[in-house]
């Protein structure tokens, strides 16, 4: 009986066992952004202890930043103060910072992997729940609160209850139009928003093995939306190639990474399996990420849809989700703001254009993603289609900056949360893949991407 990938990494990082299932865990990499860190920096300053391991921290400004005219000063005074505080704190404590305008700036969960900082076997934290994204590399990565950000700054460690382990296995081939986003929306719709609370998930099986790193990141990113502490995928050649393309890695290091993987006989606390062929393109119809349904379904078919959510979304449960008229499309976020996402969007919309009544924002996940998209000419395709191609940031995923969906408007979004008001007060969100979002932008209605793909 061998250990799981999770157990192997966890046990290597235990500095001290305090009590049964309660450990002091060492953190290899700490990512920092402007919104959840100022109070933590204040904390270490007041304690007079400094930052214990500044070289293991990396900061960027992403949550609050505008996605147009980034070269100009930030207009919102509060956002400007938050970004200025981050700059001052990183300067004072000697932490590397990629602030607005820096060539490496971007959404924290997009830049870490893309710069080769995220590597297998690591423990990674950030004051952001979508830190689970980094689990795609065979890491233990999870979101923390600001008090914990302060703890990591002060000691590079956290006091943690050891979560239980859960394997989600999906084999078989995927249907036309089904992307990594559809797979994770499907899993969440099956398990519910609290279905994996207390667990750390490992995604296993052919579907994940066949995914690229960008696709694995999309899946791991949304692990938190079913309550999981994090999600991870085992290390394989795909992982190794991705990291090797970015930073030099020794064969010894690679052997060590591979030795961490779960085996056939590794025992998980819970195992769930689905069949890849049962998954169709998915969209949500309510105000929680577990309200995913397929595009032929009636709105009322979601088993997690509450009456409160139905009322908020202004939907009729007998109506089909397809053909609902939309107002906005948002393509971006740490879930779907990587280069492969933008390529998929460009491929579908090339030679077509958006419906007149729809506003479409394409927000690349980082300066590097933006530069790459421009190099490949994707920006021209977006502009020709009537899409706005913006500068990097979290943008309309959480609408902390100016990128808000107006009250009552319906937005098909490639982001991760459809909570009430998430994209701005009164906004209504349908979560979808980049393909479904693009198809919907073209027709102006919620649209199954295979309709566009088949006629292509």
């Amino acid at each position, binding site marked *: 009986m061998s250990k799981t990938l999770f157990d192997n990494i966890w046990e*290597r990082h235990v*500095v*001290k066992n*305090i*009590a049964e299932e*309660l450990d*002091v865990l*060492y953190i290899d990499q700490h990512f920092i952004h402007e*919104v*959840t860190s*100022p*109070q933590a920096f*204040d*904390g270490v300053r007041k*304690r007079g202890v400094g930052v*214990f391991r500044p070289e293991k921290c990396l900061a960027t400004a992403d*949550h*609050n930043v505008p996605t147009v005219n980034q070269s100009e000063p930030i207009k*919102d005074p*509060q956002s400007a*103060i*938050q970004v200025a505080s981050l700059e001052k704190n990183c300067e004072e404590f000697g932490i590397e910072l990629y602030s607005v305008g820096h060539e490496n700036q971007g959404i924290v969960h997009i830049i870490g992997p893309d710069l080769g900082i995220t590597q297998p076997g690591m423990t990674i934290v950030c*004051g*952001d*729940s979508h830190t689970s994204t980094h689990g795609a590399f065979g890491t233990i990565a999870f*979101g*923390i*609160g*600001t*008090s*914990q950000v*302060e*703890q990591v700054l*002060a*000691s*590079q*460690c*956290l*006091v943690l*209850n050891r*979560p239980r382990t859960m394997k989600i296995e999906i084999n078989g081939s995927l249907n036309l139009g089904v992307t990594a986003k559809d797979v994770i929306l499907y899993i969440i719709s099956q398990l519910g*928003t*609290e279905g994996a*609370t*207390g667990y750390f998930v490992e995604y296993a099986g052919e579907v994940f093995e066949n995914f690229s790193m960008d696709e694995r990141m999309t899946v791991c990113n949304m692990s*938190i939306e079913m*309550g999981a*502490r994090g999600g991870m995928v085992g290390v394989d050649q795909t992982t190794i190639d991705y990291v090797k393309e970015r930073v030099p890695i020794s064969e010894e290091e690679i052997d060590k990474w591979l030795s961490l993987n779960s085996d056939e006989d590794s025992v998980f606390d819970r195992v769930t399996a689905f069949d890849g062929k049962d998954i169709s393109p998915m969209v949500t119809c309510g105000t*929680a990420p577990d309200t995913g349904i397929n595009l032929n379904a009636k709105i009322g078919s979601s088993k997690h849809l509450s009456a*409160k959510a139905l009322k908020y979304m202004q939907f009729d449960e007998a109506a089909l989700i397809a053909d609902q008229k939309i107002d906005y499309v948002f393509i971006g976020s740490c879930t779907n703001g990587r280069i492969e996402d933008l390529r998929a969007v460009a491929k579908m919309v090339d030679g077509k254009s958006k419906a007149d009544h729809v506003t479409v924002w394409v927000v690349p996940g980082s300066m590097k993603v933006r530069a790459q998209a421009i190099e490949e000419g994707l920006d021209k395709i977006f502009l020709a289609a009537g899409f706005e191609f913006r500068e990097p940031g979290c943008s309309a995923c*959480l*609408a*902390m900056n100016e990128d808000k969906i107006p*009250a009552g408007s319906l937005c098909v979004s490639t982001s991760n*949360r459809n*909570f*009430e*008001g998430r994209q701005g*007060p*009164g906004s209504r969100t349908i979560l979808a893949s980049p393909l479904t979002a693009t198809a919907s932008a073209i027709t102006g209605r919620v649209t199954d991407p295979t309709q566009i793909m088949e006629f292509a």
Partner: protein
Amino acid sequence: MKVKSIAIPLPIDNIDTDQIIPARFLKQVDKKGYGKNLFYNWRFNEDGDVKESFELNKPERKGAEILVAGNNFGCGSSREHAAWAIADYGIKVVISSQFADIFKGNAFNNGILPIEVNPTVLQSILDIASKEPECRIEVDLKSQKLKVPSIELVSHFDISPFKKECLLKGVDETEYLINLRNEIEVYERKVVAE
């Protein structure tokens, strides 16, 4: 830690941290004053008018130190601002049948006691708090007991012994970790040597 208070019932499942404190209120660089924006979108209309029908706004709920909420409270974002807003509003105890992991940790780190009870007990408390706003709930951390005398309900709740001690003795987890720096350095040297 002992709390005896009337309660605010929110019989809604999956209350996410975007509802507890919407993102547009996360722009401060300090921890102060978040209480006024607690459940902002549910408490106020778009023009800022108070929604009288929402539980927090009812005069009979004024001064409550206990919040009772549906299953999976605090899901979503890791924002500790949610815990700061709850604490700043004057809430000391939150009762639900399940808490999202990150919120639970944030609550403890801000002196808020998150109590998990089984769904039947939760329903009884939600019912009585809704019907009889003057009903008082008693919570005693030391004995890990939750009581609702008016319906003769006594329920034991679980809590990690470490977290319990931290709350009871006012131990600061961060100080604990700072004091561990020597051991942490030993760990680091061991890893480098491997």
